[in-house]
């Protein structure tokens, strides 16, 4: 997994962007990634699928990805070329699904990102730099288990690498880590 990602923000000041608006249920019954990408965010912004370019970043508000457990939601976003999703908070199943398929998701509670801003994301340090506005935002730290899965490239790659879930031994009781999973 690439640690430093730079790209242009597609920013939507929308909270509770649910999985039905990320990828409507009528399009989810497929294993074809490109068919999913073709309809991503269709009911929010019909132009998104046409205008998004590989390496762009998607930015939205609170509770991103609430609703269904459909993994087609992060798959559609990733297949459309989005390199990172930044939100003020994520719904729990979406958050886990995104990490599991190797789509980086970064929770940044405070930021001033606007559409078209150039961003640089340091996944390891959890820092988002807004190159357009010359600002830096701190992301919430992920639980170590998720960092391990993301660094492997996703849960499939993690299991192939480790052969199963690796017991961490010392549990992560840090209050700073995200209430994930």
């Amino acid at each position, binding site marked *: 997994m690439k640690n430093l990602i730079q790209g242009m923000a597609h920013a939507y000041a929308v909270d*509770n962007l*649910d999985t*039905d*608006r990320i990828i*409507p*249920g*009528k399009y*989810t*019954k*497929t*294993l074809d990634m490109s068919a999913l990408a073709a309809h991503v965010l269709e*009911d929010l912004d019909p132009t998104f699928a046409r205008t998004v370019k590989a390496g762009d970043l998607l930015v939205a508000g*609170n*509770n991103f990805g*609430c*609703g*269904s*457990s*459909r*993994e*087609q939601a992060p*798959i559609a976003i990733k297949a459309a070329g989005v390199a990172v999703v930044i939100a003020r*908070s994520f*719904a*729990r*199943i979406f958050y*886990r*699904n995104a990490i*599991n*398929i190797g789509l980086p998701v970064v929770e940044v509670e405070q930021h001033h990102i606007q559409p078209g801003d150039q961003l640089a994301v340091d996944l390891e340090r959890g820092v988002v730099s807004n190159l357009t506005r010359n600002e830096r935002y701190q992301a919430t730290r992920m*639980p*170590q*288990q998720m960092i391990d899965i993301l660094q492997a490239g*996703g*849960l*499939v790659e993690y*299991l*192939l690498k480790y052969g*199963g*879930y690796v*017991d*961490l031994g010392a*549990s*992560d*009781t840090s*209050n700073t880590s*995200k*209430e*994930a*999973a």
Partner: protein
Amino acid sequence: MAQTISEKIISRHAGKTVSAGEIAIVNVDGVMATDATAPFAIKAFRAMHGKKLWDATRMSLIIDHASPAPNENVANLHKLMREFAAEMGCRLYDIGEGICHQLMVEDAHVKPGDLFLGADSHTPTYGALGAFAVGVGSTDLAATMLTGRTWLKVPKTIKITLNGQLPTGVTSKDLVLFLIKALGVEGANYQAVEFSGEALHSMTLASRMALANMSSEMGAKTGLVDMTGLALWYPFEPIFADADASYVRELTFDVSALRPQIAKPHSPENVVPIDDVLGQKIQYAFIGSCTNTRLEDLHAAAAVLRDKKIANGVRLIVTAASKRVFNEAMRDGTAAILSEAGASFITSGCGPCVGSHLGVPGNDEVVISSANRNFKGRMGNPNAHIYLASPAVVAAAALAGEIVDL
């Protein structure tokens, strides 16, 4: 150390005592996936070099989301599921058997105290019988299909105490809509919810399931209903939270004056008392979904519709939670009452709720539904408007052509 219900169940499955905030790797008692999630789970399982399931007796596949298949693409995904089940030796519920969550409970594939993963966001439904049940995506499920384990962060718990007794005609659906408004759709994100209090003690399993089911609309990881008064048809050992367990938040409500509640478009937290939307015209009424279409729900609708006809210009679609529920509704006359009133029955399954295959509303049409989500586009058309309500309120609206009090 005092524990919540979640902490007790997770500790038993982690082989050590854990408390909120800790990461635990746990053994899983059962898994299920539907035609919306199983195809990607099977793909991920193969990518993990999966050759056999960790325990085929603990896995169910259910064809319920787009069932029967509306086109060849979906038909081929169903075929993939049937072939996988035959190869692996796991259970497969084919078209018409019913909705995944109803089947898991009816056939006791999930029991009190279990730790269960479902590749469907309404898996917390099983909290109605005291199981720690969590919705996951396809790849998480595939990892458990292979290893029998998963990892999770032990959730903090919100305790909701419900005092008093619900008035006649007010159901657990009204109660949960009211609570979603109180907490918000993100109000329990990453957390567990424990529902307790005297208002629940006499509640049926079906009503408890509707309550636990929509805890996912608060963002909850799981929703557990206090097991006081729970009646099941097999012996079980109830699990209760310790009296001095630690909660992140405690809320108490008296439910004895609760009015029927309605969620207006386009969010399940956009909830008002029915009085605020009386007279709202509707064209389409739907009684179905994993929330509210069990036998008691069909009985409630039949009580409203007996010897009456739905309004001109209104269509009423009903899908029973399972074939077993449908057959019981056939035997006791409920199905005939609904059909004679003008209802159209469709195959037991998710039906129009998820907008995958049939019963799509037209532009600007207004739907009243006993389901759980009214997101824009949910039923397949972003230009339709969905109101959520209890089955009796849906039936009454079908009769009047507009939202009316019971």
